C-alpha cells in the first residue's frame, strides 16, 4: 500500500520543490494521532497477526501452532462461500454509482423544482442508524406479511422469502446497502457535474452529438476522478460487510451460514464457536484481500483517470 495512496486530483501537487526537512515540527503535529493509532489500532493488528499463528485458548493463553490455522482455512468451504457472498454484495452495492450518476444528471437539469427536497430524501438513508433501519427492512422483506411481496403480488410476481432463501438473502441485504449509499453518491456526483463547463455541452451539440453521446463523451470522462473516489470507498466499506447482514437476517437465521460475509465468518469463528486463533487467521486474510483490492484500484485508477 503505503505511498501509492493518493487522492484523485492530488497528482502533480505532491512533487514540488521543497525546502529541507521541517525539523521537529511535523513530529509535533502527528505525534498525538500516531500515539492513538499505534496503541488502539496498530497494536491490535500486530496481536491479531501473531494470534493467527497460534491456537488460542478461549479466554486467553495461546500456543504457537505455525501455519495450522491457515492450512485449515484454505480447505474450509466457508471461506470461499463468504468471499463469494462478499464480492456479490460489493458488486451490487457498486451499482449505486451508475444509478446515482443518472439521478444526479436529472437533478442537475436547469429548472428542476424541489431539487433540494429530493436531495434530502435520497440522503436520509445515509444518515439513518443501521440497527434501526435494518429492522424496518426485515419487516418489509417478510415473506408472509411483508409489503414488498404484497406489491410484487399485485403485479403477479410471487416473491421469494427474501431473508430466508440462500442467494436471495445476500441480494436483499445488498439492496439495502445500495439504498443507503445512493444519496451520498448522488451528492458527490452532483457537485462534480456542476464543475463541468456548459460550453463543452454546447460544442458537442453543435457537432450534432445526441444526449447519450454527450453523456458518454463529456460527462463521464470529466467525472472519472469523482467516480474513482466513490468506487474505492464503496469497495473498502462493502468488503467489510457485517452490521447490516447481521441486523437484517437476525442472529438465529439458518440462512446465515450460507449468506455470511467474510467479516461475519470472522466474528462467528472468534465469538460464536470460540476459536480465536482461527478467527485471527481469517482477519489476516480479510486484511490482505482488502489491501490488495485497494492497491489494484489505485493503480487502475491512475491509468483510467488520466486516460479519460
Amino acid at each position, binding site marked *: 500500500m503505503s505511498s501509492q495512496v493518493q487522492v484523485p486530483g492530488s497528482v502533480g501537487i505532491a512533487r514540488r520543490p521543497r525546502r529541507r526537512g521541517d525539523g521537529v515540527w511535523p513530529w509535533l503535529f502527528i505525534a498525538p494521532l500516531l500515539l492513538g493509532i499505534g496503541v488502539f489500532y496498530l497494536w491490535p493488528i500486530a496481536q491479531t497477526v501473531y494470534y493467527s499463528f497460534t491456537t488460542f485458548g478461549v479466554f486467553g493463553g495461546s500456543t504457537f501452532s505455525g501455519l495450522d490455522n491457515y492450512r485449515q482455512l484454505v480447505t474450509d468451504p466457508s471461506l470461499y462461500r463468504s468471499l463469494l457472498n462478499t464480492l456479490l454484495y460489493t458488486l451490487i452495492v457498486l451499482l449505486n454509482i451508475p444509478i446515482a450518476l443518472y439521478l444526479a444528471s436529472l437533478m442537475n437539469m436547469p429548472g428542476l423544482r424541489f431539487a433540494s427536497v429530493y436531495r434530502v430524501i435520497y440522503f436520509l438513508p445515509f444518515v439513518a442508524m443501521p440497527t434501526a433501519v435494518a429492522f424496518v427492512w426485515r419487516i418489509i422483506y417478510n415473506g408472509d406479511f411483508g409489503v414488498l411481496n404484497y406489491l410484487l403480488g399485485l403485479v403477479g410476481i410471487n416473491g421469494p422469502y427474501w431473508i430466508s432463501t440462500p442467494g436471495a438473502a445476500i441480494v436483499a441485504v445488498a439492496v439495502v446497502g445500495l439504498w443507503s449509499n445512493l444519496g451520498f453518491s448522488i451528492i458527490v456526483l452532483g457537485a462534480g457535474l456542476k464543475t463541468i463547463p456548459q460550453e463543452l455541452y454546447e460544442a458537442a451539440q453543435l457537432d450534432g452529438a445526441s444526449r447519450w453521446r454527450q453523456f458518454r463523451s463529456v460527462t463521464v470522462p470529466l467525472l472519472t476522478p469523482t467516480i474513482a473516489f466513490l468506487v474505492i470507498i464503496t469497495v473498502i466499506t462493502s468488503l467489510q460487510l457485517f452490521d447490516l447482514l447481521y441486523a437484517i437476517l437476525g442472529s438465529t437465521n439458518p440462512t446465515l451460514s450460507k449468506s455470511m460475509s467474510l467479516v461475519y465468518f470472522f466474528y462467528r469463528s472468534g465469538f*460464536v464457536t470460540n476459536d480465536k486463533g482461527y478467527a485471527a487467521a481469517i482477519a489476516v486474510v480479510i486484511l490482505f484481500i482488502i489491501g490488495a483490492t485497494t492497491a489494484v484500484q489505485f493503480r487502475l485508477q491512475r491509468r483510467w483517470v488520466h486516460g479519460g
Partner: protein
Amino acid sequence: MHQAPRSTSPLGRPAKAVLAASVLALGLAACGGSSTSQSTSSSAASGAAGAASASTDLKATLTYGLWDQTQVPAVQKVLAGFNAKYPGVKVNVNVTPYADYWTKLQTQASSKTLPDVFWMNGPNFQLYAANKQLAPITDQVKSGAIDPTKYPKALDDLYTLDGVQYGVPKDFDTIAIWANTALFKEAGVALPTGDWTWQQFQDTAKQISDKLKSKGIYGAAAGMDGQTTYYDTIFQAGGTVVDGKKSGYDSAASQQGIQFWTDLIKSGASPSVKQLTDTTADQWFTSGKLAMYQGGSWFRSALTKGPVSSSVKVLPLPMGKQKATVIHGVANVVAASSKNKEAAQALQDYFASQEAEQTLGSAGSVIPAYTGTQSTFAASMPGADLQVFLDALAYAKPLPVSANTAAWNALETDLLPDAFSGARPVADVTKELAAKMDTALGHE
C-alpha cells in the same frame, strides 16, 4: 457505507464548522452532567470491597449481568428484598442483548472483568467452568446457604462439572404444546385429552391445516431450534444428541426425531422452514395463525394481552417411543475473578433462597426453580393448564451440552434446515452432521 470500520468512519457528509461549533456548545453542558454521574458510580465500584465480617454489614458494589430486558422489573423486586438484608451492598443491573451477551462476556472473561454475578446457560456453562472463570458453590452448600436438593436434579447436573457444582438455577423451563382452542373449534377438530402419540399429533395438525389453509392458518409448528423442537423429538424417539465425545445424530432413533419435523412440514401441517425463518412460530401463534405451537414455558409472558391469550390451553408433548421434554434453566453464577466475592456469593445465596424464588415466581415471567414455589406460575393463567409444564418435570431431560456446545450448535443450524425442508434426505444430513460434530467434540 454503514459498515465503515470504527476507527475510520464512513465517508463524510458535510455541514460546516458551524455544525461542529454548535454541537460543541451543546455538548459542554451535557458533558458536565454526565461526568458527575460517572464519578459517583465508579468510585462506588472501586471502594469498599469485602473485608466485612458479619454478613449483613457487607459493603460492596456489585454488577449483575443478564440479557433479558423484560425480566428486569422482577429482578429489581428480588434485589429490593436482598437490600433489606444487606443494605450496604449496591447491585447494578447490566442488560446486554442476548445476541451480544456472549461476545461481551468472552471479552470480559479474557480480561478478568466479568460481572460479579451473572446469568449462565447450559450451552455455555462448561466452557466457563472448565476455563476456571466461575466460583464453585461448594462452601455455600456446606454451610447450608444453598440447598441443591430443592432444585430439579437435571438442572443441578447441568451446572456441575467434574463433580463440582457452580450454580443453582434461578428458574426452569420445559417444553409443551401451546394450543389455540378457538382455531380447533373453527376447524371442528376435537381438542386432544391426556397423553397422545406422534401419529395423533401429526393427524390433528394436518386436519386443522387442511380445513383452514384458505385463511392462511396452519396446524402446528415449532421454533426449529434444538431446545424447543428437535431435541424433544429425538429424546422421545429414544435417541441422543451428544454422548460423551460422540455425536448421537447417527442413530436411527435420532433420525426419527428429525424426520418428525420433516414429515410435519411435508404434509402441509406446518409452515415451511423459510416461512418459519421470516416469521417465527411464536409470532404465527400470537397472530392467531397457528393452532399448535410447540414452545417453552417462557412463552407465557408473551401472552399477557392480545386476542389469542383468552383461548390458550397447554397440552403435553406427544409421545414417541417414550415421553420426553427438554428442561433448561438459567443459573446465577459468581465470577472467579470477582473482587467482591463475599458479597457476590451473598447475592447468589439470596437468589437461591425460597423467598427470592417466590418473588420471582409471583412476577410471573418465568417458573421459579425452587421446589414448591412454582404454584404461582401455574395459577397465573387460569384455565390454560400451565400445570402441564410442571408435570413435565417427571420425564424431563437436560438440554444436551458439552465443553464447547456452541461449536456443534452452529453445525446443527447450518445443516439441519436442509433435512427439515426435504432438500436432502434426513439420513444423509444426520450422517454428515454426526461426522462433523465428532470432529468438533474431538477438539474440546
